[in-house]
């Protein structure tokens, strides 16, 4: 199971940086969510460099959860920093900042 946590986190980080996941805001200020297949994943930022990833099934029930500390313990790598960057990127994607910057760069590239 723990190997799957690492794989899942790595895929989330990778696909988010490629802009391939449609993250959404939630009612909680510190939680973002993405639907993948028939399930959903939540990423919660609780304090400085403290992250929790929750897996929800189709009914919305939390079926699994793990933190950056769990990932670091399993892999001997510091996941807090990577998840922090990912979380910030997600926030920028949701707010549209990334899109605005992309549009600006496209326009400037034409000049």
């Amino acid at each position, binding site marked *: 199971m723990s190997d799957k946590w690492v794989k899942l986190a790595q895929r989330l980080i990778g696909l988010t940086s490629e802009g391939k996941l449609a993250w*959404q805001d*939630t009612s909680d*200020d510190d939680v973002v*969510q993405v*639907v993948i297949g028939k399930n*959903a994943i939540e990423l919660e930022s609780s304090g400085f460099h403290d992250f929790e990833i929750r897996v*929800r099934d*189709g*009914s919305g029930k939390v079926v699994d959860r793990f933190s950056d500390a769990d990932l670091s313990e399993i892999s001997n790598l510091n996941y807090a920093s990577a998840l922090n960057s990912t979380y910030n990127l997600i926030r920028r994607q949701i707010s549209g900042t990334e899109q605005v910057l992309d549009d600006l760069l496209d326009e400037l590239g034409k000049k």
Partner: protein
Amino acid sequence: MLFRISRVYLPTLGLKALKQNHMLEAIEDCELISVDWDAVFSWPGYDFWGILLAMVGFAFSIAFAARASSKASVAANAAHAAKRSMINADTASQITLVQQMLVEIRLRVENQQWEQVSEKCEAIRVIVAPLLSSGNVELSEETEKSLIGLQAQMASLQKSSDEIRHNGSDFNLVKIKSVLAKQAEAVAKAVREIKDNTEAVQNV
């Protein structure tokens, strides 16, 4: 006996002897064309006629079965369409109920009635879960994804409501309302899709 046979054959030969009172001549003529029934039965034989009769019967039974099968197929398709139409109508009514509940949640949030918010979130999850898991409901991938997202959002809002209620946690009213508005939009789209599907099934 001979006379009876001749009466059968007379009209086909065009003889008008009977009308002209030449009965005897007519009967003599008829003797010439009287049927040798023994010959009929001896060639090609009873087997031939039996097989021919069986084949004709078989052909009729095949035609009858094909017709019956076609009718059964049409009836089965109609029954299937009726069932699908009923499922779609039921799904549409369930999702419409969810739509109404989202409106109620929004009002409860504005009034900060967190217990009711939590209850309604749970109620929505209970309604939507079987729609996603039953496999009877035909939903597009996009709608299915929207409903899974709704489930996760409702679970998250339920958790937030419980925390606000029990721990007095901070909350962002604008954000909660924004999330609810997005979910209402997704649900409205799902209702439209299911209603369109129902109409399409009824028109088939």
